[in-house]
């Protein structure tokens, strides 16, 4: 698993790649919470996620909850089919704001 944080027009684009599992999700959690400290807008790019399980999903849920408390914008973009399968099984596909692409997420404001 690897991650990359980019600043695009003042928004943090957090791109995750590879398997997000019990071993790697603590890093994901930490990166997301850090970004939430620095940015008012976070877009998590899940296009490169080949696997994600409950602990990875839990990191996303936690970041989502923190963003709501802070009044920040938090959305997912470019969700890979593997990640979408797990999100829909967890019925979180209706909870998260999901954009078809990072561009669409940024355009949404």
């Amino acid at each position, binding site marked *: 698993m690897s991650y990359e944080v980019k600043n695009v027009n003042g928004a943090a684009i957090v791109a995750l790649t590879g*398997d997000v*599992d*019990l*071993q790697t999700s603590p890093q994901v959690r930490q990166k997301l919470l850090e970004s939430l400290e620095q940015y008012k807008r976070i877009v998590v790019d899940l296009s490169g996620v080949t*696997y994600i*399980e*409950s*602990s990875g*999903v*839990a*990191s996303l*849920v*936690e970041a989502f*909850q923190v963003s709501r408390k802070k009044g920040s914008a938090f959305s997912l973009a470019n969700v890979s089919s*593997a990640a979408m*399968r*797990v999100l829909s*099984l*967890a*019925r*979180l596909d*209706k*909870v998260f704001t999901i954009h078809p692409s990072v561009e669409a997420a940024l355009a949404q404001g």
Partner: protein
Amino acid sequence: MQVQAKTQSGDTPEADTKPQGEERDHLLLIAEMTREFAAANDYKAVAHTTLERITKYMSAEAASLFLLSDSGDTLVCVACYGPVDITGLSIPAATGVVGRSVISRKGLLVRDVSQDRDFGAAVDAKTGFTTRSLLVAPLAIGKECLGAIEIINRTTGDGLFSDEDMMLLETLARAAALAINNFRLTHKIVQQERDRHELELAAEIQRDLLPQASTRDFPIHGINIPARSVSGDFFDIITLPDGRIWFNVADVSGKGMNAALLMAKTSSLFRCLAKSAENPGQLLSAINNELCETNSHGMFVTMVGGLFDPAIGMVRLANAGHEPPLLFDARTERFTAVPADAPPLGIAPDIAGADGFPVREIYLAGGTLYVFTDGLTEATTFGGGMLGIDGVRALIRDHADQSPDLRLKNIAGAVKLPGQSLRDDLTLLVAEDMAIAPMGAKPPAGSLDTPADEQILRIRVPGRADRLKLIRAATEQAAKFVDAPEAWSFDLKMAVDEACQNIVRHAYKNSAEAGDIVIDFRRRGGLLEVDIMDFAETVDPETIRPRDITEVRPGGLGVHLIKSVCDEAKFLPPPPGVGNLFKLTKRLPPKVQ
């Protein structure tokens, strides 16, 4: 025919001094008209010509025929002859000279209407016609009176009607009454015959909606006996390509044609929506929403919907306000009732959340599930009382050793009294555990005859987070080995990963010196079984529950994900030396089987 010598109005007729010729004319007219009435298919057409002839014969100005409406409170003119057409005119039944004649069933002769308190001048005012004298005869049949014929205004002589005219009209009226009555009876019989025929057709179509009789080695059998020709009950059995079986038993409120139509609609919805539903809770919720969109008249449907997996002997069941099904274990003679968790269908939309109606998982474990309608529990027994749930249990116990078909026939036969129709529609369905055949019988040959276990892969790895990737890779390889498609493999991988993750976190508590995890992949028939073992302290499975997924919070999601993608996931008693044994069962996709 006998011509009465005395009028109904009570006047004594004069002595018979009329010439022979006129009397013969009378008789000829009566004979001819009676014959015409008797031969008529439609009395209204004959009535018109009859009124014309009689008007001319009596040198009158007009005539009309009034019939009582079905409700009996109005008299309607169905035919008339004269300068003013009053066909269709209706007057209150209890008023006027005609009304008086109908109520008293007597002929009336009113020589001067201006002197009669009953004469209703309203009709004249409406039609512009001037009535001077009236002759009215009732259309009487026994004690019944269908209406009356009236003749208005004699145009010749003194302009008055005679008692003789009265007699003639009464005779004709009697013949007309008979003809009208015959016509009505015939019409009614034809209509009844037509209704009966249509009901037979409806019943035939309805029977076609029920599934065909199951073969002997099929695990689900059903029977439906309507109380009338059409039924408000139904059941259905639908086999999926992977071997699992949808079934239902339902009861539409009410009886007769409206219940039958709602039954047809609900059974179509079940058939149609079952193809895309994941579980009975979702399916019943979808049917409920559809019914609520269009249902009216306060009708509703109680239903038990189930998805049976014969390979593991497990039924997922949702019960919408229906009679609780009974699970019976013939070895212990124990019954377990499965109560309703939701209201009937068609009452309120969206009563269930996104997950649908509550679903119960029932392991038959060698037992048999009986699903039935209240037509069985409320049926009358030979003794005269109601069968009741205890009676149903006794019948099930008494016939437990019979083949399903025979058992259904015998249980239904115990309440279907010979020569009598049932009080209510009766439907009964049984789901048998063929994996463990009841009464120690040999398992049936056929599709469920599974080949011996086939070991695919066994791995032993330290129970640590950094080994989960290896476990996922091994799981993918095991899935690949049985030619499972990618999506199927992904789901299995996730389930195994989640199960192992629980061991790493909870059983070994993320310790660097964690014990091992052993995973055994096996194929058994159309199933892939994964045994996941650890060597930690044995945990109480009751403490591990799927989270309520309507609650958005991190954690507790793993068990839900496992249950979502596996056909079965449960803790088994661990073999000696093993801490915990968690077994996943996932049905292989149809083409792989």
